[in-house]
């Protein structure tokens, strides 16, 4: 049997002929990065290759280093392996990695969503022989409503809070979800305030030339009145901390695919939950896999065991793979606490 184009090693995904890793969880020589979330982009490697949009985010989170960039659909050759990036639609800069070598094509999806959110680039399925897919929401209970509809719900909720003189605090990942929410919130015409962790990402993107709506950073010395009836975007880790007190009276809305299930919403003790996800839902995963026409599918982080079993049952050869991805939440929280300080 020939060596597979991608091996699953204890450092992460490895391409033997290309001699590089993809999203490694331990330091390596050359790391190809799908996107800047901290479970996929970790510090300590000698050099990084990512999409152009990811660079400022990697610099922000990993510090100075060697960052090479390419655009989507701009192939490069590494030790004879043809590598190209393709939009994954997950967050700004997020990319699928396509590898071609000796006539065989493998694609690693990274994290992806199939709906175009207007900010992360429109996802496109890439034809391949072997597809490595995430499965964060790989159960049939996860089916998202269109973004437009969720945005309307969020706007209604904000305006209802506004009419009661309450501040709306939206809980969202500081990289990705927070930027995605901005146009939604901007449409209400209310001033937008950002938590420090969200602000840092925002500034890095603005400095790199992205056009984002006008916002203000929440400052220690701001008078309390300034927030009244308006909107704050903060990472989940801020919930229940003394930092929140200044917004009182406020209402908390959590924006996450996990809010699809009532139990999660109740556990968070939030006032509202919006199932707005940056990952593909059940049908999104299935459509994508079919569209890649892959003969073999590897399923990583999420409901990999159930999802791969189902793929096999519908005639798509699949196997589950254990990775250290999918710790987005915990990893981000650590990061956010650091940025807060």
């Amino acid at each position, binding site marked *: 049997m020939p060596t597979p184009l991608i091996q699953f090693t204890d450092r992460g995904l490895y391409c033997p002929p290309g001699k590089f890793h993809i999203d490694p969880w331990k330091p390596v020589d050359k790391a190809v990065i799908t996107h800047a979330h901290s479970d996929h982009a970790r510090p300590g490697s000698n050099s990084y290759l990512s999409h152009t949009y990811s660079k400022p985010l990697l610099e922000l989170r990993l510090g100075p280093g060697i960052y090479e960039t390419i655009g989507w659909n701009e192939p490069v050759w590494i030790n004879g392996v043809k590598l190209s990036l393709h939009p994954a639609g997950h967050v700004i800069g997020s990319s699928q990695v396509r590898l071609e070598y000796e006539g065989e094509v493998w694609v690693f999806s990274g994290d992806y969503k199939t709906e175009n959110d207007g900010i992360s680039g429109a996802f496109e399925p890439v034809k391949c022989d072997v597809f490595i897919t995430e499965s964060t929401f790989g159960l049939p*209970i996860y089916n998202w409503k269109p973004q437009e509809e969720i945005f309307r719900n969020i706007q209604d909720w904000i305006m209802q809070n506004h009419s009661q003189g309450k501040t709306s605090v939206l809980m969202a990942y500081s990289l990705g979800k927070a930027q995605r929410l901005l146009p939604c919130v901007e449409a209400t015409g209310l001033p937008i305030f950002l938590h420090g962790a969200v602000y840092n990402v925002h500034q890095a993107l603005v400095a790199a030339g992205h056009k984002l709506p006008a916002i203000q950073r929440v400052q220690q010395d701001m008078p309390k009145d300034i927030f009244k009836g308006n909107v704050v975007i903060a990472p989940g880790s801020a919930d229940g901390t003394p930092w929140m007190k200044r917004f009182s009276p406020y209402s908390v809305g959590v924006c996450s695919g996990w809010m699809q*299930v*009532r*139990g999660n919403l109740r*556990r968070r003790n939030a*006032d509202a939950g919006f199932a707005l996800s940056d990952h593909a839902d059940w049908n999104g995963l299935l459509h994508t896999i079919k569209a890649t026409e892959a003969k073999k599918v590897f399923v990583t982080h999420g409901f990999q065991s159930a999802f791969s079993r189902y793929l096999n049952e519908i005639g798509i050869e699949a196997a589950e793979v254990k990775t250290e991805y999918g710790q987005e939440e915990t990893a981000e929280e650590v990061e956010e606490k650091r940025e807060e300080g």
Partner: protein
Amino acid sequence: MKQFAELVNILGTSTKTNDKLDALSAYFAVANDRDKVWVIALFSGRRPRRTINSTLIQQWCSELIGLPLWLFAESYHTVGDLSETIALLIPDTLTDPEATPHPLHYYIEKFQELAAAGEEEKKAFMIQSWRQLETPAEKFVFNKLLSGAFRIGVSQKVMVNALARTVQLDPSVIAHRISGNWDPAVITFDELLSETNIKADSSKPYPFYLAYALETSPEELGEPDEWQAEWKWDGIRGQLIKRNNELFVWSRGEELLTDKFPEYAIFKDILPDGIVLDGEIIPAVDGKPLPFAILQTRIGRKNVTKKQLQEAPMSFFCYDLLEYDYEDWRGVALSKRREKLEEVANQVSRPELLLSPVIEYASWQELAALRDQSRDMGSEGLMLKRRSSVYQVGRKRGDWWKWKIDPLTIDAVMIYAQKGSGRRSNLYTDYTFAVKDGDKLVSFTKAYSGLTDKEFNEVDSFVKRNSLEKFGPVRTVKPELVFEIAFEGIAASNRHKSGVALRFPRISRWRKDKKPEEINTLEELKKMLEVYGK
């Protein structure tokens, strides 16, 4: 149905009692009368009985959407709630755009009609309803109602208060009127809340007065002689009613238990007419109560054997008098009610009706010492009642307090974990614990509560990293985490491998300072049975 689904959604997710109250009164202001009666019934524990078993519902849903049953089961384990799973699985595309959804009462009444119907008919109704109801929220409440598992995060008290706003009656009056025996399928909203209804129904119990736990020291309550102390019994709180020469026994859960306990039948002959007593339904021999485990042998049995009557003879430990000679005595001071109660009980003089004694004490210190003997008395602590107190409605602070003894505890190691449901869905929160028996571990109890959300998260991540085997939803876990388990009582049991059954077990703390080698042994557990279980 949409209105009701919206209401349930707010009640289920709102974190503030006032928001719940607002949502309920807004609902009562606009809903139709039939629906209102059902909502009162649902929120006061009068759930319609399950008419379709859940295995069939799962099957039909899987069939309808073309999903293998195992994947349905995976989804269910993740959601932690069958009704919600189905609501999430049925896609909007199946909704029939031509269909008009019906109001709440239509669906509930239809279930009851269908109770006796054949499977095919039930199935057709289910599928038709799933397609009629537009949103997952509506499908969710529909499934909940039908599976007989309808529970909402709101107390009866909040419902009564909301109703009081709408109908301009005092909450305590409403609580009384909606108590007891009525059939939501036939009674009208006006009948239910009218005064004549109370008079017409001689079985009607009074709403129970409930105590809060005493969290301060008793000294802060004032002078000891202002307070009456009694033993707190661990039975079923009950109300004994004799009116028009008929006898009715109600539990606090407003279940009519008259026929369950034939021992009580003689009260019909020996009690004066027009009387209501408040007390504890509990088995006793020679005036001493038996452990709760003995009572359990009588709960839920329709036909009682001679042996059971002998081994678990039921008594009624009375401690309050609410009605005498058809007069409502609830507004009379406790000291006067007690006098009358003693008079009645002394006249009866039967082992089936015992007067729950008043404890004599001169100082709080003396009472605290007596409290330490609670277990020997077969009680779980003390009740403190202000002598001047009237009999209030529901749980109120100020005049009545329960002062329970500290629970028994044992250190154990977690060996199995299972995902919880509701707000703990997709999180391993239901654990089984073991004690040591030589070099083996013997499971002896489950416990579901007592940790903070943060601790649950921590244990959850431990389980995910350290599970050894998977049996359906249950994981066997590396025996490493030690917890202190608290419980109220212990009894012998041949249903459990360990030979004991615990009363109200819960986690009292996570013993991060202890290693699994340091947990208690089966022998020590059996010693506790010896001391406290007889």
